[in-house]
């Protein structure tokens, strides 16, 4: 890894660590949320930004992680560590099944198929209301939220655990896209037929991308549930499939640091506007239209295009 790439991403993590000691309480809590949601965005970016597959249904993976963690934790009392792994496994399995089916389609059909599968997952959560408690959701008690001896209901611990997960996702994807197989994903995004005629099995690579992307999204969902003690159906709604698309478009698709800044900007934009009006999703709508029109590369993408060509 070149020194400047190392410095940039290590620097971001170091700044976030410093902020732990500097931020006032309110923003400290916000940043913990932003970092977990940034993991979700990073997961989405593996599929959208690096492989070129636009999913409109990632909420199902986020929710699979969240419920795969929350249900056994709440009802079986298996402990936060095992529950987290169960969340990861649920998301990975769902991603494998959805990938096997949805990857038979391309383009617009792929978008609609993922949208429909995600809607089916959301409705299933509502249908199983006896266990999931539907829109009301499950509140995880404080003793349930002790992960490897760390009490996740403590804001300081929560921030550092969120930072740890974020750093893991950031470095993990940075490693992935510099691997030979990660390069193939980029090649598929750029020119699928050419990549196939270089001898690469396109379907297998795309399937792997769906599973990796779904699993990272699921990890974010499971972590979000554990850290903030709540598992609810609203996280499986269409809105939560649109958010990662919006974050990644805003931050810069196909960049490693872009998703974080996309989440950060959008989080504060919505946080500010929801103080003014209940129609805060208007901001999301306007942002989507403006981004597709004027900045399809997003913040980090524009940065790369204009000044910093080495940005991974």
């Amino acid at each position, binding site marked *: 890894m070149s020194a400047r790439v190392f410095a940039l991403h290590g620097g971001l993590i170091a700044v976030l660590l410093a902020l732990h000691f500097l931020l006032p309480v309110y923003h400290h809590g916000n940043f913990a949320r932003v970092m977990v949601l940034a993991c979700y965005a990073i997961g989405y970016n593996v599929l959208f930004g690096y492989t070129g597959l636009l999913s409109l249904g990632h909420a199902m993976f986020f929710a699979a992680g969240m419920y795969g963690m929350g249900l056994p934790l709440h009802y079986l009392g298996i402990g936060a560590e095992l529950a987290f792994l169960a969340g990861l496994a649920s998301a990975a399995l769902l991603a494998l099944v959805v990938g096997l089916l949805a990857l038979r389609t391309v383009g617009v059909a792929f978008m609609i198929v993922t949208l429909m599968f995600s809607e089916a997952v959301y409705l299933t959560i509502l249908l199983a209301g006896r266990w999931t408690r539907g829109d009301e959701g499950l509140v995880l008690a404080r003793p349930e939220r002790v992960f490897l001896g760390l009490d996740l209901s403590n804001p300081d611990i929560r921030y550092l655990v969120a930072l740890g997960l974020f750093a893991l996702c950031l470095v993990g994807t940075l490693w992935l896209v510099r*691997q*030979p197989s990660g*390069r*193939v994903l*980029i*090649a598929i995004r*750029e*020119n699928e*037929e*050419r*990549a*196939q*005629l*270089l*001898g*690469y*099995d*396109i379907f297998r690579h795309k399937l792997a991308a769906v599973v990796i992307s779904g699993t990272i999204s699921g990890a974010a969902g499971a972590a979000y549930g554990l850290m903030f003690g709540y598992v609810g159906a609203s996280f499986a709604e269409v809105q939560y499939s649109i958010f990662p698309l919006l974050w990644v478009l805003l931050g810069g698709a196909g960049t490693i640091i872009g998703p974080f800044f996309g989440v950060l900007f959008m989080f504060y934009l919505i946080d500010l506007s929801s103080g003014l009006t209940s129609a805060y999703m208007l901001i999301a709508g306007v942002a989507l239209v403006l981004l597709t029109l004027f900045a399809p590369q997003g913040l980090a993408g524009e940065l790369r295009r204009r000044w910093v060509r080495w940005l991974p």
Partner: protein
Amino acid sequence: MSALLSTRALSKSFAGLRAVHEVDFDLAPGEIRALIGPNGAGKTTFVSMLIGRIAPTSGTIEFDGRDITRLPAHARVALGMAYTFQITSVFARLDVAENVALAARRRLGRDRAAVARETEAALERVGLGQYGAALAGDLSYGHQRLLEVAMGLAQRPRLLILDEPTQGLADSEIAGFNALIRDLAAETTILLIEHNMDVVMELADRITVLNFGEVLAEGTPAEIHASAAVQTAYLGTGADA
């Protein structure tokens, strides 16, 4: 000597229209073979079936004694076939070296040093050594064609299929291209689909002429040049048609 690539009764119809009809074709190892024929003779359809971009309606394809008729394209490439597109198809937004590295990496895997060596060697060989850091989309058309060839080379294929590689090249570039292909013939078998008859006559060991989806004639350049049937079907329409 057994053939490296052979087809038996290979056919393709589009909505009842016969594009390629019962073609028997044998390619010996080490040969430079040219495939020629008027526009619409089925050349591109034929090679598209060879590499697996389209599925034949009937017939079989064997590569190195193995039936590959049902194999997907990427598996054929993995067996040692390489294909360069008629319409330039490079990864325009990636740099030139990465284009070639993608071609080399499937074979060499994680060995970064070996990939870098192979990439540099392939680029040097086609004369693009100084352009490694440029974006492929920023290269001139002629250089993009050469990049295609470099991507073919980096795969170290046993059979290299070049679909109209000299299309759009300047005369000066064609001379260099001819030298490159003659040089390559020492290490790989080459199937060349080509319109430019000067290139064909200069390079090919043997020539196969397709017309209306069938093999009209096959032989050495001299034989083909002398063939009356080929004259009327093809050369009669102009030597560089």
